[in-house]
């Protein structure tokens, strides 16, 4: 996973609240292997009509250069499906800016180099207004936790540990394997003090 600090791209306003992971990728596409790519399923039922054709009026369909989405509160709520993040990433999205995110979604995002940039309500309203006429150039800086659109520079909130992970492209499994000794010791103690935590053999 490649790390990143600064992204220069294009931000699109999608000012809808509660875009849940079922909308980000409907369940019927989730049996597809990742290698086939999930980008075409992103927001499938919003973007496409019953025949599967792209809707002309949907902004994401007319601006393929979009790399950042500004969305309403509670983005990525619902199902824990990481496929929702795959759909965004495979469609070229690097960051989502919103007033709040579903907890599991945000964690999944960081695990896939997608930045969940949380902004306050006031900043959200200002950004939404500046994007009302269409997508704009954007600069996102993880170090300074800022989003710059035109002359406006807006701060976002991001957990420090997540910032480190995004910047360094760290993989948790590698990090955790360094703690193998501590894990083994913990398991030993737990098996002695809480033996009931191990399932009994089936009778």
């Amino acid at each position: 996973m490649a790390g990143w600090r600064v992204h220069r791209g294009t931000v699109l306003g999608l000012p809808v609240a509660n875009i849940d992971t079922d909308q980000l990728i409907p369940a019927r596409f989730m049996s597809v292997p990742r290698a086939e790519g999930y980008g075409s399923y992103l927001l499938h039922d919003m973007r496409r009509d019953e025949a599967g054709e792209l809707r002309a009026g949907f902004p994401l369909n007319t601006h393929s250069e979009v790399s950042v989405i500004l969305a309403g509160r509670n983005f990525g709520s619902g199902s824990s499906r990481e496929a929702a993040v795959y759909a965004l990433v495979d469609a070229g999205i690097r960051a989502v800016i919103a007033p709040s995110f579903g907890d599991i979604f945000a964690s999944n995002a960081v695990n896939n180099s997608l930045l969940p940039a949380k902004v306050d309500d006031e900043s959200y309203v200002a950004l939404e207004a500046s994007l009302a006429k269409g997508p704009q150039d954007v600069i996102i800086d993880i170090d300074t936790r800022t989003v710059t659109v035109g002359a406006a520079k807006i701060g976002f909130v991001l957990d420090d540990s997540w910032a480190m992970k995004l910047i360094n492209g760290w993989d948790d499994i590698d990090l955790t394997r360094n703690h193998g000794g501590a894990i083994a010791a913990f398991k030993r103690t737990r098996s002695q003090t809480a033996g009931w935590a191990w399932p009994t053999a089936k009778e």
Partner: protein
Amino acid sequence: MGVPQTMLDKLWAAHEVLRRDDGVSLLWVDRHLVHEGSHHAFAKIRERSLSVAEPALTFAVVDHYAPTRGRSQIADPRIARMIDTLRSNATAHGLQLFDLDDPQQGIVHVVGPEQGLTLPGLLINCGDSHTSTHGAFGALAFGIGATEVAHVLATQTVWQRKPKSMRITVDGTLGPGVSAKDIALYWIAKLGTDGAQGHAVEYAGSTIESLSMEGRMTLCNLSIEGGARLGMVAPDETTFTYLEGRSYAPKAADWQAACADWTALASDEGAGFDREVQIKAAEISPTVTWGTSPEQALPISAAIPDPADVAPEKAAAARAALDYMGLTAGQTLEGTPVDQVFIGSCTNGRIEDLRAAAAVLRGRKAKVSGMISPGSTQVDAQAKAEGLDRVFTAAGLDWVGSGCSMCVGMNGDLVGDGKRCASSTNRNFKGRQGRGARTHLMSPAMVAAAAVTGTLTDVRPLLRGRGA
């Protein structure tokens, strides 16, 4: 005595292998439950030639794609492939699998408790957001994404920042026809679908203490729909009575020791919570959702809201929801015609749910079509032993096999475009039960009432004179 601790504090401390300087903890995972959707995670560890660290603590269940009819010959090759992939991963890593033909098969969040795999004091992970269900036993149980599932498979641990604590206290007696589902929809409507974001919710109070394990599971299950990281209830005699003698639960002297440890898990007197919410049981009515978010819920007697009257920041969502749902502001919810009904899911597919619905349907006919999918094969057998299946089939509803079924539609059980479904499930999201499907969430008894009249209906008059 030190500082009074919450149940969250105690459970967290009991699982913390280490805490980094940045405050993120590495937690030991006691049970890891996987299903067909875990294929991404297995692929990730395969790419790196890693094995499953603790196969004896990892259990695989066929549920999301489980066909509810014609299981021996699966017609759809994509569904067959998903189930076969889980089988081959379980075999390759030596995991116990509850396969389609296993008498213990069912929805992972029904099977875990039913088999005694779910116990108080455990940390339980599963790549499914409704893992919060298991918190009903006083476990630290939360859903994780595929990358984290791969991490748990490879290391039996998970990195987490401790969530904030929140206590929802519900006191008093629930009215007739009011259940755990209504408590959940009530608080989510009150606080919002992100109302508990970043929090671990502990449910407490006399109403919660009086709930059965099934009711507590329904409540904890729906915690995620209010944005909570997890939900939990302190273990008590109700918990122990439910668990004693279950297949994988501790036995004999181990059982006694376990119960003593589990009793100590409850939050200490005077423990501080980051947030407290008080609810009176008497305020709660049979509740149904009218929109496309679980927070868009109201008592069945209410009128469908006018977007002009809701909070300004929620007006656009309300308008979009009414448009999608094909509803008009000002109409009463009661009397809205439905096309079909569904009872099942990890939220409300347990034996008590089927009993509550059967109590309404017994001796009555359904005016619309519908499906009943018991939450597990064991629930199916129990229901049949009690003759409940015949109550539903005599009413004209279909009794089918167990699995996630029409809650998520992955197995092909779908609600048609534009069709309205009274559903005992957990999400009324756009397209959740199928493209264009219109879902109204409610308790199993309320679903049964909708079946009887063919409309959204207050179940209470239908219960009069019946021992529900």
